[in-house]
């Protein structure tokens, strides 16, 4: 029996992510157990890890660090242990070295780069809110079979700017390219919300459940 730890640290999209992961498991034909947990030990023992997150980078970073032993458990399971990891929205942003939302906040430092306010030209609205097309930059198993011209749901005012272009898995066009997904080794992160992106989102989550990066 394999388990997925969905980390509970007070994030608003926790239950949406849980429901979508259960639906995705059914779609993937997987009997994986979805364990919603704030227990570092259970995260350390899980086979896969999902970190959700909405709202403010600094609040989420503080919330995660407030959970006893959690960042150490993540570091051990994901960086040393190579377990497949998915970060969603601010959960993805936290993979960066720094968040620049209201001051400078340290992230997990797994992907070199910062999270900066998006400043689109052409008088485009911020937040970037709604459905936008994915422009795939990597041929990645998590991005397979999403259909022609896949669209996903975004809602954010900040985006990751990776130092290495090679870490960008997909972009979206919003007055220029913005980072929509990052990937390296066993790490995957989406700026958009797969749990709110209907069929495309469920397919992506199902792909993550079947993904073997080793």
């Amino acid at each position: 029996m394999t388990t997925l730890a969905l980390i509970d640290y007070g994030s608003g999209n926790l239950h949406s992510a849980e429901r979508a992961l259960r639906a995705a498991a059914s779609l993937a034909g997987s009997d994986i157990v979805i364990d919603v947990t704030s227990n570092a030990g259970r995260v350390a023992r899980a086979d896969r890890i999902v970190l959700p997150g909405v709202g403010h980078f600094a609040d989420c970073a503080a919330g995660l660090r407030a959970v006893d032993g959690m960042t150490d458990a993540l570091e051990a399971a994901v960086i040393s242990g190579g377990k497949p990891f998915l970060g969603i929205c601010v959960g993805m942003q936290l993979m960066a070295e720094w968040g620049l939302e209201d001051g400078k906040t340290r992230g997990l430092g797994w992907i070199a780069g910062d999270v900066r306010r998006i400043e689109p030209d052409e008088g485009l609205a911020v937040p970037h809110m709604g459905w936008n097309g994915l422009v795939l930059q990597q041929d990645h198993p998590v991005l397979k079979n999403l259909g022609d011209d896949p669209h996903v749901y975004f809602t954010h005012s900040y985006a990751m700017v990776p130092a290495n272009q090679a870490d960008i898995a997909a972009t979206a066009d919003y007055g220029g390219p913005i980072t929509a997904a990052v990937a390296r080794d066993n790490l995957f992160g989406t700026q958009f919300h797969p749990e709110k992106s209907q069929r495309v989102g469920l397919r992506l989550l199902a792909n993550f459940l079947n993904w073997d990066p080793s």
Partner: protein
Amino acid sequence: MLKTRIIPCLDVKDGRTVKGINFVDLRDAGDPVALAKAYDAQGADELCFLDITASHEGRGTMLDVVRRTAEQCFMPLTVGGGVRSAADLVQLLRSGADKVAINSAAVANPAVIAECAAKGGSQAVVVAIDARKSGDSWEIFTHGGRQPTGIDAVEFAAEAERRGAGEILLTSMDKDGTKSGYDIPLLKAITETVSIPVVASGGAGSAQDLAPAVLEGGANAVLAASIFHFGEVTLAEARQALADAGAPVRPFET
């Protein structure tokens, strides 16, 4: 490129949809969850529930509707109506709403907007503005459009943005129910003032009414109720009409 969102809006009272609804192949058109699923299957880009329940008991019913919808529909869900405080917002977000619309409470006390943004993030806070033309400007009305406030709609939209709103849901009281199209001058006045997304509401009578709200009015999304509920316009027809007029829409295959 970001696409125009098409948002069906359901009025819900004591857990049931209230406006007459004529939906093909739907056993219980009074059940908001069944309707939400039908719109999900048709490719709605987002759903909006407006709770018009007056009683306290009905609030719990609405939370249950939100919970059951979020269990079955993996799409963005906005809930409004009777939201008074950041505590109300948190309760709705926990039940499965992605965004919460605040109307009268935000007008009465704009500090509520910042309190809500601090609790749920700006992206979760929609300020709903009901406006009516008054001389050369637009005045905000509250309490379902019955109560004048003397507050200028454009100035209030700017204040809402300053205080942390992530979106404006703009309803024209002059156009609402007329089926004569959205209020383009009102939309322009607001979208030229704020840099957050604006959802157009009030007046859609046909699929052809949608595109001007975006192309002329500058709206990021179009919200409508009766044209969808009565089956006058399908989501596919709405997408097609927007695309034909040059407003980008999300490709969706049913």
